């Protein structure tokens, strides 16, 4: 069984601020880590491999230093890794990112199952997984809570649908995005770190793609444009209300209604 896991390097902290005067992003240090939700996807892959055997490949897209998350995946037990990186991918939005990774996946070759985390902590969109599945022409299921059974040609999963839980069987090849807590991710192993320190990380650039049309990547392949960024309004209002009980209770009800809690 060939399992591909998509991982991403994200900033180590979400404490990013924008300078309200200059409009410049202020980042504290350059600390980075693997997107925490991806750890669940990787753990799911490792559990499936333990049961059914097979090969786990991880793929990431980003600058050269994003190789670090692949090394980390090796320490957890991934077998192979590839970094999709090119200056021409700069400024990619969700659509261009999904297309780029799907081209990288095609370059890597055959697969039965692609696993993604449910979202990233820096983009927070949860959109790249489903868009990749579309580009690869395979079905997908989002928010998988549990793997119930792995069959020869399909997998049975439990998915979260807000008020209900659905059990569905999906044929390979397919893509699943897994929810947090599907399995407890293992820690990277020191032994594996030593074993894999020289393991090759495949580099994939635009030239390796089947579709080399520059217009489909990076800023040129991105339909969305960020017009501006600005700091949010912070609600620091402090109000004190006094009066008769009937006035006060009515005031509370009115405010709750205005805030859409009623």
């Amino acid at each position, binding site marked *: 069984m060939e399992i591909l896991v998509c991982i991403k390097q994200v900033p180590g902290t979400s404490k*990013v*601020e924008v300078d309200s005067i200059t409009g*410049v*992003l*202020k*980042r504290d240090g350059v600390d980075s880590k693997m997107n925490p939700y991806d750890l669940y996807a990787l753990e799911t892959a490792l559990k499936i491999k333990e049961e059914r055997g097979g090969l786990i490949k991880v793929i990431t897209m*980003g*600058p050269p*230093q994003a190789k670090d998350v692949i090394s980390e995946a090796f320490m957890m037990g991934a077998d192979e890794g590839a970094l999709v990186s090119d*200056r021409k991918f*700069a*400024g990619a939005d969700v*659509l261009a990112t*999904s297309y780029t990774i799907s081209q990288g996946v095609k370059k890597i070759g055959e697969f039965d199952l692609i696993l993604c985390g449910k979202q990233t902590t*820096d983009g927070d969109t*949860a*959109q790249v997984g*489903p*868009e990749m599945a*579309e580009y690869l022409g395979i*079905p997908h*299921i989002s928010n998988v809570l549990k793997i119930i059974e792995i069959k020869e040609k399909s997998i*049975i999963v439990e998915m979260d649908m*807000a*008020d*209900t*839980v*659905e*059990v*569905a*069987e*999906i044929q390979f090849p397919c893509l699943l995005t897994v929810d947090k807590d599907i399995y407890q991710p293992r820690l990277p192993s020191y032994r594996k770190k030593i074993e894999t320190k020289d393991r090759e990380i495949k580099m994939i650039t635009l030239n390796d793609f089947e579709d080399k049309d*520059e217009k489909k990547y990076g*800023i040129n392949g991105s*339909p*969305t*444009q*960020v*017009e*501006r*960024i*600005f*700091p*949010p309004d912070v609600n620091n209002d*402090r*109000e*004190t*209300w*006094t009066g008769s*009980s009937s006035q*006060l*209770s*009515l*005031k*509370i009800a009115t*405010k*709750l209604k205005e805030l*859409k*809690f*009623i």
Partner: protein
Amino acid sequence: MSRLICNQDKVNETNVQELINVCPFSAIEYISGKIEVNAGCKMCKICVKKGPVGVMEFIETQEIQVDKSLWKGIGVYVDHVEGVIHPVTFELIGKARELAKVVNFPVYCVFIGHDIKEKAQELLNYGVDEVFVYDYEELKDFRIEPYTAAFEDFVNKVKPSSLLVGATTIGRSLAPRVAARFRTGLTADCTILKMKENTDLVQIRPAFGGNIMAQIICPNNRPQMSTVRYKVMDAPEKLCEAKGKITICEIDKSKLTSNIEVLKVTKKEVEDNISDAEVIIAVGRGLKSEKDMAMIEELAKLLDAQVAGTRRLIEEGWIDAKKQIGLSGRTVKPKLIIALGISGAVQFTAGMNSSERIFAVNKDANASIFNVAHYGIVGDIYEIVPQLIENIKNSGAEFCVR
């Protein structure tokens, strides 16, 4: 084609470090006497705007513009499970009508499912001009391929300029799939939407964990797509008279095949966990006896809230230990917390002071809970809570406008 270029001749010893530092993504490098931009670049163009003058330049060439006049109307995806329409749908209809007014567009709904024809009628009471219904047995359960196919058919048929989809489990799975099929932009979890005169949709969403707001447009592609979470927009008032029409759409059944089979659907057993609660009613020592928990429970029920408490009430045994807020209990960050009869010791407030909206009712005007509350109400919970319950009950009555 757009690109970022570096005028190497303008780079010198004095400005090179300034240039490298200006990039928040560390994407500018100085390698053997040349400035290189690596793959970490997000094309934020800060180096052009704020870096040394004239060094970095952004070259933009005119792109082929989409003919925006061919794309009219605002479409809303009707989010539902087995025909029960999710309320986010009505909120989006309200927003769509507001946006449509700016450019004189119609508002459409696309309703995909099985046995839903009659349910579509309800949508007409919210001011939708036309509801497009795809009613097939294959669409009974949400499965990605047939739902995407029906959605695609709707877009091709109607050519809506913008599409709004609820950021529910289904919406967050379906919208990206449709966006990729049309190679168009999709902005997740928008909190503000505005319409420009030229029909471009201005989409604003929190970025980087909510510390920054990003204003996003999709100027060269149609349809423009956004997802919006529940309770972000206002629901429109229900109209007494239904307006608009329902169109039953046909689709080639071969497009409705799927590699997914839904085997079982079960109602979720919700285990109350105050850490995940959106609304919390917290009680403290202002509550005099266990039987008074009844009025607290009643209020909580009306607000779809969970009941939590201070350590004192846990020790009294009136509230389960899992429901304790504070340093020795849980930390909560709900959208709304109402603190009733709680003095506000730091051991308690440390576990809840990052909640989005904090209401506090306390008899003592000097109680420290008022230092963290957004709305501090000086009064007796035994008088206020029963009246508040009545007020909420009265406001819940369904009415419509003519």
